[in-house]
């Protein structure tokens, strides 16, 4: 037990250690009772050597109880609590945080509360997956109507496709159709190259490209000094030209010696081939032939 004697005289370090173990340097616990409030003040040293003052206040209640209960209240403690002081031992009894009973006034409240509490319930409301057959909240392969509704829907889609497809085509050629609707129709992933607009890619940028290919000639064995304007002068007599492409070196800007000339009409191109092929131009003999359709 702590006592004041040790406070000033510390004969050896061994005693000191012992004292510290006994908390001998600490003031003894005090207990004061004022009215129905009991205050217990204790001092403690924690592992870091810091002193702590613990003040606990108790409310003393007087309750009337039956004789048997009153008698039991004065029973001696036993077992593991044999040496406990009167009153609750903090090692075994603590007062917990305030909790409240949550009242549920109606069934809806209860359900609402349930949903708040369960994060999975929030997700349940939303459709994560949607069946393509019945628009239900499950995978298409697991659709209960797969066998009955599925084939029916396919037939229906085919019929619709025939009637609407005709209408769509001219509209599609006028302006490029967005790929989205095509994807929605089947639901399957369609690579961009296979989508509706895929085959005429870049159409809007190069109108009538296919027509060009038919009326395009390739001119080779051009001199390095050739300019587009020279080619224009050379081929204009055969017909109106829609496009001239002269291959040029990226760095030097000089001609690479070949060019493509697109005419509006194929006849013009044919005449140009007949007229210019073998024509001496700038000390070189030009070679003119049909341009092979490009692979892409």
């Amino acid at each position: 037990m702590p006592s004041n004697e040790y406070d000033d005289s510390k004969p050896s370090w061994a005693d000191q250690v012992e004292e510290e173990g006994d908390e001998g340097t600490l003031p003894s616990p005090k207990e004061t009772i004022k009215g129905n409030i009991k205050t217990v003040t204790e001092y403690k040293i924690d592992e870091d050597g810091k002193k702590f003052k613990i003040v606990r206040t108790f409310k003393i209640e007087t309750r009337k109880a039956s004789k048997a209960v009153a008698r039991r209240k004065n029973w001696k403690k036993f077992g593991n609590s044999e040496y406990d002081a009167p009153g609750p031992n903090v090692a075994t009894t603590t007062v917990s945080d305030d909790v409240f009973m949550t009242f549920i006034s109606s069934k809806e409240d209860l359900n609402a509360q349930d949903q708040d509490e369960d994060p999975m319930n929030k997700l349940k409301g939303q459709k994560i997956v949607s069946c393509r057959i019945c628009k239900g909240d499950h995978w298409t392969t697991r659709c209960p109507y797969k066998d009955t509704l599925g084939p029916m829907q396919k037939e229906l889609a085919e019929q619709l496709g025939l009637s609407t497809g005709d209408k769509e085509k001219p509209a599609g050629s006028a302006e490029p159709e967005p790929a989205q609707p095509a994807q929605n129709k089947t639901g399957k992933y369609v690579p961009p190259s296979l989508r509706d607009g895929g085959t005429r890619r870049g159409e809007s940028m190069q109108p009538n490209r296919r027509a060009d290919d038919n009326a395009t000639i390739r001119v080779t064995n051009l001199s390095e000094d050739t300019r587009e304007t020279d080619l224009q002068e050379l081929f204009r007599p055969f017909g109106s030209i829609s496009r001239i492409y002269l291959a040029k070196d990226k760095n030097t800007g000089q001609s690479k010696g070949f060019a493509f000339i697109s005419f509006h009409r194929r006849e013009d191109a044919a005449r140009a081939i007949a007229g210019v092929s073998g024509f001496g131009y700038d000390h070189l003999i030009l070679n003119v032939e049909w341009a092979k359709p490009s692979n892409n």
Partner: protein
Amino acid sequence: MKPILLQGHERSITQIKYNREGDLLFSVAKDTVANAWYSVNGERLGTYNGHTGAVWCVDCDWDTKNVLTGSADNSCRLWDCETGKQLALLQTSSAVRTCGFDFSGNIIMFSTDKQMGYQCYLNFFDLRDPQQIEDNQPYLSVPCSESKITSAVWGPLGEFVIAGHENGEINQFSAKSGEILKKAKEHTKQINDMQSSVDLTMVISASKDNTAKLFDSTSLEHIKTFKTERPVNSAAISPIMDHVVMGGGQEAMEVTTTSTRIGKFEARFFHAAYEEEFGRVKGHFGPINCVAFHPDGKSYSSGGEDGYVRIHYFDPQYFDFELEA
């Protein structure tokens, strides 16, 4: 309300019980000691030391003289409530699952588990006959070959024991002849707990099939059903209100994989007549294994898988609350 937290056990609580006046609360857990607490301030009166296995059940007699505990160390022990001394040791061949004093405190019953090749037995001892305890020979031993008893309480007047079985059956066993007086098969899964009302006219059974059911003690007539979405571990009837409190949660083995928020570890209050839930109290970190009403109905306690016992004194709102029918 500020619950009083009792930390007297190192493992999950298996049963808690008030004495008749409610001034003492007994708790047993899967560790080896039984604790006695003053319910008014949570002060520990003492511990009953001696068991060497998990303690499954506890009971206290009418005048708080003796305490009975049953344990998985294959013994049922009788203690002096005041001093904590062991008065009698009844050895069994398998774990003792449930135990109880009859109204007189003279006759005790306990059931043993179907375990290690031994059958489930319901044993009756008369404490007035010291020879029975000395010889460890019950005056009546009823074998239950079908399904083991998982919970049992004494019926009114000490005439029979109402036992809940692993298969969901509820049977009345006569304390005199051992024969089955009445049967009820309302539950589909194991009965986890049986508790009687303060006047012993009704019993409530808590079952793994997510329901608790109210029965008439004598006729075993099914009166009410209280449904939840988790297994019910324990249920108790309020002595003063038409209320029922239920504790449960998912199975202990699934606790670590579920968050506390969705674990449904609350004590849930149902109106006994309308069968509707009207309130919840949170607090435990795991499923509630046992609930008990104070005999004055002004407080209740719960013991959980987390090893804590919590004594709750109701706020005035609880008594004012009326359910909209």
